[in-house]
């Protein structure tokens, strides 16, 4: 009896291990893909979508901060580098973060890192070349999200912050 079940049980245990690991590995890609679809619906690929303030009625991604204003670009470097230029917002915390398709952070640059100057990153895959004046960021995957966060401490500041952030660009070479 036990002999009859031994190999099927071993097979079941092996399958369960693969299923367990498969779900863990697939989850970030699936959720990132969904996020890229949601954000990508707001602007074409390789261009910034300048999101409105996060509220209970405006939550494109999980756990948004209502204290930050977000601008996001779904990029695709398969046809060439994507250049991201971020306008600095004086007196405010801001950062640009680059997330790959596995949700890993490939780069973060904040006003602390740039000394208040604009950030200029070239997103690319291996074998591509960054134009002069751009800091190269080599990615493991073709697609991902470039996200700008800007802190504002009162609603009265929003018009000024909004005008400055719209000078930021995300474009394919």
């Amino acid at each position: 009896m036990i002999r009859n079940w031994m190999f099927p049980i071993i097979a079941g245990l092996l399958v369960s291990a693969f299923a367990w690991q498969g779900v863990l590995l697939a989850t970030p890609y699936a959720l990132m893909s969904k996020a890229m679809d949601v954000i990508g619906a707001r602007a074409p690929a390789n261009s910034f979508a300048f999101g409105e303030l996060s509220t209970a009625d405006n939550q494109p991604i999980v756990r948004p901060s209502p204290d930050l204003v977000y601008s996001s670009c779904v990029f695709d470097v398969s046809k060439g580098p994507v250049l991201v230029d971020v306008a600095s917002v004086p007196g405010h915390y801001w950062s640009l973060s680059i997330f790959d398709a596995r949700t890993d952070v490939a780069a973060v640059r904040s006003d602390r890192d740039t000394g208040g100057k604009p950030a200029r990153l070239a997103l690319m895959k291996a074998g591509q070349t960054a134009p002069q004046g751009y800091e190269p960021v080599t990615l493991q995957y073709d697609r991902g999200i470039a996200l700008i966060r800007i802190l504002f401490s009162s609603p009265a500041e929003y018009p000024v912050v909004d005008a400055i952030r719209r000078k930021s660009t995300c474009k394919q070479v």
Partner: protein
Amino acid sequence: MKTWHRFAACIALGLVGGAAFAVHQVRGDYADKQVHNGQWSANTNQGTASASALTRAKVALNGLLALPAKEAMYFITRTDSEGRPLEGRCTYTVTGGELDARWWSVTLYKGEGWLVKNAANRWSVAGNAPARDAQGNWSFTVSPNPTEGVWLPTGGTPHFDLTLRTYHPRGALLNDPANAKLPTVTRKACA
């Protein structure tokens, strides 16, 4: 029972069991590099290439596009200081001192991390909002109904969590988050 029936049954059980265990883990509390400090927990490995598959999946589910620790530390609590789940019908006082970061805020979420509808259209308290006493201590209230002072509405959601964001953390917040001085969440009363 034929041999292939036994294989089919065990493989089906393995498939469902393995997937269900993974979902249970992703929704559970455990993750590698998870730091606990009182009722607060944080992950110091999020967003990094060295994060485990489990950590990466948990962050994707509960905090997609979160920044790495050097840029921001996120502390989350789902319980008060006595370990009781946070309930939307109850009133809490959040008390703390100065936090060693460039900027901080506390935001209220329900479920996997969604802002809760409320009449005041208020979802967070920024670090510069509460008044300080002579020692630099501050407090604000989390409750379903308006109160005096700085108030963060629960919106009547059955359960919620609080996320403490600290941007450009320094000192113990970044290097020893398990022992950093963090706010306390004290339950006062429940409706």
